[in-house]
């Protein structure tokens, strides 16, 4: 029905605000019932429908009602329970029982003071050897994430965009991307791509991050500016694909234009099937990539969860304003 289409936007193209596309599946049944009851007086009900939509959107549904007809509920991608970790060398505790659940199609943002453990959390999730998990669990797509090697986690669809990507002089970007792509294809039992075919495959992805072709011949991150490094990370995300992309301070060191490019690229990669976990300090990024949830991390645990309004409070009152409530 027309009403259904205009409000529901179930299969939206990526350009629309992601919020609507991810939330609609839950409210489908309501839409159905409304239109069935009042088919004639459309304008008013539509408005109230929208209001109802907006109203319900601000509340985080903790439970998932799986009674929608013909609609799959988003799967649980990542479930972290009471995760604690220390630095391997000094045994200093950094994570103190982090709890987090990320479903398909969600955009989460993690904010917090410097030293609260945000980057550590990201690194522990991808298996960085500098950190040791001392307690808790992390399940990814139903499997024990902590038992997997870093390369296994990557092939399973977990991607981390590093805060400070390191240089690898001597390995060109195209070789690196080809290696990583083929490693993934191999694990999935798919045919690998030869260099020429691969080149054809990635040329359009370069456009997505607004980078020139010649960058492929340069060595990985060698002599790259901050913006170029971050865009390189997003390019890798675009090429390798990920079910859960963790973006560690993707906005740091980027100018306004670069940030817009990166954010557009990330938005372009979002689908109802994949999720993003962003670590950031500033509201600016959140204006481009709209989060479903915002978590505040303090002293190695998530202390508060909210929506975009939380970011506004943070901006005005700082972390102290958040921790007092």
């Amino acid at each position, binding site marked *: 029905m027309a009403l259904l289409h205009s409000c529901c936007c179930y299969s939206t193209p990526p350009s629309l605000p992601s919020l609507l596309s991810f939330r609609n599946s839950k409210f489908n049944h309501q839409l159905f019932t409304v239109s069935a009851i009042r088919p004639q007086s459309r304008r008013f009900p539509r408005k109230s429908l929208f209001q109802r939509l907006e109203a319900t959107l601000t509340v985080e549904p903790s439970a998932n009602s799986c009674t929608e007809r013909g609609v799959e509920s988003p799967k649980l991608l990542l479930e972290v329970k009471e995760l604690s970790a220390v630095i391997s060398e000094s045994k200093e505790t950094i994570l103190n029982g982090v709890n987090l659940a990320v479903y398909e199609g969600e955009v989460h943002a993690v904010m917090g003071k410097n030293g609260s453990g945000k980057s550590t959390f990201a690194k522990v999730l991808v298996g960085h*050897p500098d950190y040791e998990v001392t307690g808790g669990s992390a399940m990814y797509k139903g499997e024990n994430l902590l038992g997997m090697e870093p*390369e296994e986690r990557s092939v399973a669809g977990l991607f981390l965009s*590093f805060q400070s990507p*390191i240089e*690898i002089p001597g*390995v060109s970007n195209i070789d690196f991307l080809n290696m*990583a792509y083929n490693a993934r294809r191999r694990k999935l039992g798919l045919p690998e791509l030869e260099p020429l075919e691969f080149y054809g495959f990635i040329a359009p992805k370069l456009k997505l991050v607004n980078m020139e072709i010649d960058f492929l011949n340069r060595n990985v991150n060698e002599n790259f500016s901050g913006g170029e490094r971050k865009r390189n990370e997003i390019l*890798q995300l675009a090429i390798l694909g990920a079910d859960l992309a963790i973006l560690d301070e993707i906005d740091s060191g980027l100018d306004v234009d670069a940030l817009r490019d990166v954010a557009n690229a990330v938005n372009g990669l979002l689908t109802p099937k994949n999720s993003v976990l962003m670590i950031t300090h500033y509201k600016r990024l959140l204006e481009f990539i709209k989060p479903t949830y915002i978590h505040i991390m303090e002293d190695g645990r998530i202390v508060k969860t909210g929506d975009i309004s939380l970011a506004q409070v943070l901006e005005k009152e700082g972390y102290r304003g958040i921790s007092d409530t």
Partner: protein
Amino acid sequence: MPAMAASTVPTIFHKTPSASIYVSISPCITKLTTPRTKFRPKSTKTRVLTQPSLTPLATLSDPFVLQIAETLEDSLSSNSSPPLPPLEKLRDTSSQSLLSTPWPSRKDEPFRFIDTSFIKNSQILPISSPPQSLNFLDVPTDTQFPSLAIADGYIVNYSPQLSELPNGVFVGSLLSLNSEAIMKRVFEYVSSFQGDLFWSLNGVGAPDLVVVYVPEGCRVESPLHLKFFSVEGSYDGSKSLPVSNPRVLVLVEKGGEIGIIEEYVGGEGDKCYWANSVMEVIIGEGAKVSHSYIQSQSLSAAHFKWTSVSQETASTYELIEVSTGGKLSRHNVCVQQVGPETFTELSTFHLSGSDQTHDLHSKLVMDHPRGFSRQLHKCIVAHSTGQVVFDGNIQVNRKAQQTDAGQLTRSLLLQPRATVNVKPNLQIIADDVKCSHGAAISDLEDDQLFYLQARGIDIETARKALVFSFAAEVIERLPYTSVRKQVENHIRQLLNPALPS
């Protein structure tokens, strides 16, 4: 050099003071008493200690060295015609210095880390004639560049592309040099440098001089490929060691430009031989020489090489070396600044596998202002019995103000007990200079490994990629694509079985 000889005196001439020591050793040669025999003082007897007045230099000689020198000289004297003036001059100066140069021992600083005993304990046989068959030349080579094939020190083949070289350029044997002007220049420069014992041995034993002459203002577009083969060799168990002494003189006049690819191939099998090669490069004002040096000698061979460069004002010298072969490989580089504003870039890569030793002793002497130099030395020791030695000396003397010199050496040790000895040394006397040096010895960087792993690349592939990329930094600098690809493939092949599991 002569000063060191004094220490060997007591050990060699350890006889009663009144005894006389006869220096000549091989009796069968006495019939060749041509005036050229420099190693047998005619009146025969020299005395030690009690009567120092008679031929004092001879008393300091190392008999082993003299013996080699004699055998070298004799192998050449079978050539009936008298040597050309430059060769004569070369042999004279070299033999003179040999009289007072002992065989290096581990106590001599320049040879502290390498063991030359396997040469010393062998019976050294100079190769006195070019190889009979030219089968080794059948190996398909990239024949796009003008090239010379030199086997055991003798030129055996001239490629047809040599005729396409610009007018005035001469590439070939000294014996076929017709131009008097060039001959005169060659005479001026040949052996104007003082090297070590091995330099002098080459001077005495070189059967021929390969001359590469570039006239003033001439820019040679395509690079010149000098391919050195070692045909004669002995096999396991044999105590004999055939020695060849190839020698090249590159003379580039003012404003000239040339690229040289110097390649040493060991051929099939693990032959045992000793290649003792020397290349002198004289670069005129504003001239440019790009020197690619690739060494893949047999794994049982000894390879000693000298590269002596003299740079006039505003000249450019670029050396890119990739050495992977030889049981004992020693490269001595000496770049002497003869005028200001020179540009020097040395990039070297050594790969040491099982029972291999690679040694690079380099010396940059800056005596004039505003010189610019950069040196990058990278080495990988892939086996517990492999070793690399690096001694990078840079002398910035008093008149070399505003010199900008940088040196970096990075070593990758892939297995326990793999050894590297690095000694970067800068001797700076001038006070308005910018000099830096750095040395790092490590395994692969964890951060880089993790980055690759985090992108789904398994640890083995990641290690391989990073080890190769370590080498790639130098290999990338080879200016000619075909050469670069060939070297890349060779290194890849060598690195794959050598990686630790």
